[in-house]
């Protein structure tokens, strides 16, 4: 064991930058994927045959697209969308490229979470809103989202943790963040203290996210 805590102290500025990068990548991706995924999830829910804007064709197309992207392992997805990444964020490496890839991949995951939680909303309230003469789009935004908000927040929390996981895999393309720190400064140099400190930092980041998510959900559900 040639590792000591001294190596963590020596690389502390790198560690801090890594924490910052992880937070930036996960929060920015969560926001972007949250918005895109919400829209996609609403579309999946609404076009489901028999629902507000039921259309077998539209639903089938959306469903197939989401199912095509979802099973791709993120490390492969990251490599595969490099050409697109070059067009959109003008680079295929570093924090911007990783954030772009996560935002895209997580959107599809979020869309399923949104769809599932909206399907769990009592169809009776949708009927009550329709009977009031409300427009389907207005029902989606002012009835379905508020009615499903508690479970939606928990779903987003779940996705957030998956996103933190993806940021670590960003190390593959020099993504920065705790994943890269743990690999290049830690495991590749057999410096286990660095690895453990990275693990601890990731655990804290995830716990914090879970804590905030639980709090928000409880406030929304009033229990």
């Amino acid at each position, binding site marked *: 064991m040639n590792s000591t805590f001294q190596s963590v102290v020596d690389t502390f500025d790198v560690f801090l930058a890594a924490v910052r990068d992880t937070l930036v990548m996960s929060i920015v991706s969560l926001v972007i994927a949250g918005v895109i995924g919400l829209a996609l999830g609403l579309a999946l829910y609404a076009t489901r*045959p028999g629902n507000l804007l039921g259309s077998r064709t539209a639903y089938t197309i959306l469903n197939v697209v989401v199912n095509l992207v979802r099973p791709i392992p993120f490390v492969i997805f990251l490599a595969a969308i490099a050409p697109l990444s070059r067009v959109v964020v003008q680079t295929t490496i570093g924090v911007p490229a990783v954030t772009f890839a996560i935002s895209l991949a997580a959107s599809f995951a979020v869309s399923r979470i949104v769809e599932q939680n909206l399907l769990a909303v*009592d169809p*009776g*309230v949708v*009927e*009550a*809103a*329709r*009977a*009031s*003469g*409300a*427009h389907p789009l*207005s029902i989606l935004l*002012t*009835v379905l989202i*508020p*009615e499903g*908000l508690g479970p939606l927040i928990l779903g987003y929390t779940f996705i957030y943790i998956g996103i933190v996981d993806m940021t670590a895999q960003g190390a593959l393309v020099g993504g920065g963040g705790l994943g890269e720190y743990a690999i290049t400064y830690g495991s590749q140099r057999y410096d286990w203290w660095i690895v453990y400190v990275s693990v601890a930092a990731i655990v804290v980041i995830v716990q914090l996210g879970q804590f905030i998510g639980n709090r928000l959900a409880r406030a*929304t559900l*009033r229990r």
Partner: protein
Amino acid sequence: MTALVELRGVSKHYRRADTGETVVAVEDVSLDVHRGEVLGVIGYSGAGKSTLVRLVNALELPSSGSVTVGGQELTAIPERDRRLARRKIGMIFQQFNLFRSRTIAGNVAYPLKVAGVPKEERDRRVAELLDFVGLLDRAHAYPEQLSGGQKQRVGIARALASNPELLLADEATSALDPETTSEVLALLRRVNRELGVTIIVITHEMDAVRQIADRVAVMENGRVVEVGDVYDLFSSPATGAARRFVRTALHDRPSPETLVRLRERHPGRLVTVQITDEAGLQNRIDQAFRTAGVTAELVYGGVGEIRERRIGSLTYEVAAPDGSSAPVDQAIAALRAAGVTTDEEARA
């Protein structure tokens, strides 16, 4: 009376997604709902009542036929106009369907927001409505904090928010206990009387119809098999379905089990006469028995009222002093001749 709702040859068929077979929910229904009345629509589950009521506010569109509300043919206008038409038709539900994410006041305000009513007017109207249903003090509570009866009162306030001329009640009291049911029905009656709102009450409970309806439509297998004034339907139901429902709400006729017990104690012939609100009825019954020279012992029955008119039935054990049969036949004939609806209970 003018018709507020006109259904003409309305049918609704579904294709089941799993088996592909066609299900008939509503079949060739033509029905008028008069302005200002309370129409009860009664039927067993699966009779098509809930589909019928959803055809009235065009939440469902018929496979054929036309639906006209307030002179506007809902089946002939674009969905955009149907949405506007729905704002003039309130609806309440068996499971209340309140928005859990909104307060009581927020629930009642929803249709007003949909209609684009400015905030100030909305607040005033919400207070007015909550006062009408007696829940002004619960304005800031959430639905889960209310009892079932209170939830339905919120449902009624929400349905009335945009001043509809028609209110649809879909099994609105089926999830409530009898006492709460009566309270909610009394409130609906007030909505009808004081606000002049026409109401269609969908139910499988004849007691609810008895308490609130002016007219009744009986549904069976997607069809309306009988329509009429509630008193007439109770006093002279024409179809088997109507008779079965009337029997569930009137307990003045002996059931087959009761009849077996009655026979053990009363060996004579059992004759049931129907009590209506005709003047001098009692006199005619007494006269018929007296003229035939029979004794009549009252063994079962009851008299109540529907829409403030007398209704009921009385079962007598009728016997001649000498035990012969002819005077009893004579008494039954005399009752019928006097215009009294009379049935002899068949021997088991």
